[in-house]
């Protein structure tokens, strides 16, 4: 499994990531699932001006590699790329990019969603949201926690 994990202030160039995957890709890959998270310009009816993301260099990368290894043990994956931005991001900017290539679509979809769910709960980042009225540090929601926990229970669809 080829794995690339990058934390960067720079923007994410989705087209370049996809081209690089196609270039290095073994031919047995039939399915590529990707996810891109953007800064929403609204949160609970308040306008979002920016999101500032902080990380702990070294520990953050390790936390993501641990998540990727879990996914790799769970599904037959060929290629995983995760790029996560840090610093101050304006509304509509790209935050995170996850790209998973596998032989078949079930594994690619499941792993991509699994990776996003665990990035929400287990990756070492902190996010501060600025609205016209306040600045506050975010926590992963109860919903995020329950989505991540759901992967720990046996999944009846996993054999498909």
């Amino acid at each position, binding site marked *: 499994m080829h794995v690339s994990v990058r934390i960067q202030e720079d923007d994410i160039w989705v087209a370049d990531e996809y081209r690089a995957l196609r270039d290095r890709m073994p031919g047995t890959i039939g399915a590529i699932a990707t996810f891109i998270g953007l800064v929403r310009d609204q949160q609970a009816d308040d306008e979002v001006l920016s999101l500032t993301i*902080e990380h*702990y260099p*070294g520990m953050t990368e390790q936390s993501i590699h641990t998540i990727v290894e879990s996914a790799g043990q769970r599904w037959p994956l060929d290629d995983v790329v995760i790029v996560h931005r840090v610093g101050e991001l304006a509304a509509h900017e790209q935050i995170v990019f996850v790209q998973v290539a596998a032989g078949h679509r079930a594994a690619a979809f499941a792993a991509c969603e699994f990776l996003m769910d665990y990035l*929400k709960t287990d*990756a070492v*980042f*902190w996010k501060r949201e600025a609205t016209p009225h306040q600045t506050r*540090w*975010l*926590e992963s929601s109860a919903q995020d926690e329950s989505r991540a926990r759901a992967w720990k229970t046996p999944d009846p669809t996993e054999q498909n």
Partner: protein
Amino acid sequence: MDIDVLFFASLRDVVGAASISVQLPVPAGQRELLAVLGERFSDTVMQALQAENVRISVNKTLATQPLSYSDGDEIAFLPPITGG
């Protein structure tokens, strides 16, 4: 012994610093670290550092109690994380 103590996100805001160096007696664990920090910081700061949802890492690995620190360790106070 000397250790580095890091504060992230909301805890850095509360402490007013991203990292400090502290001298600890040998041997030292979390109790000794908190005692030294308690001499420097207000009760408000100390309560924030000891909140139930704050986790401690030692040399960039999440630590579980009881902790035992060594010279040169990098200790971090981590408020609740969220990425993605």
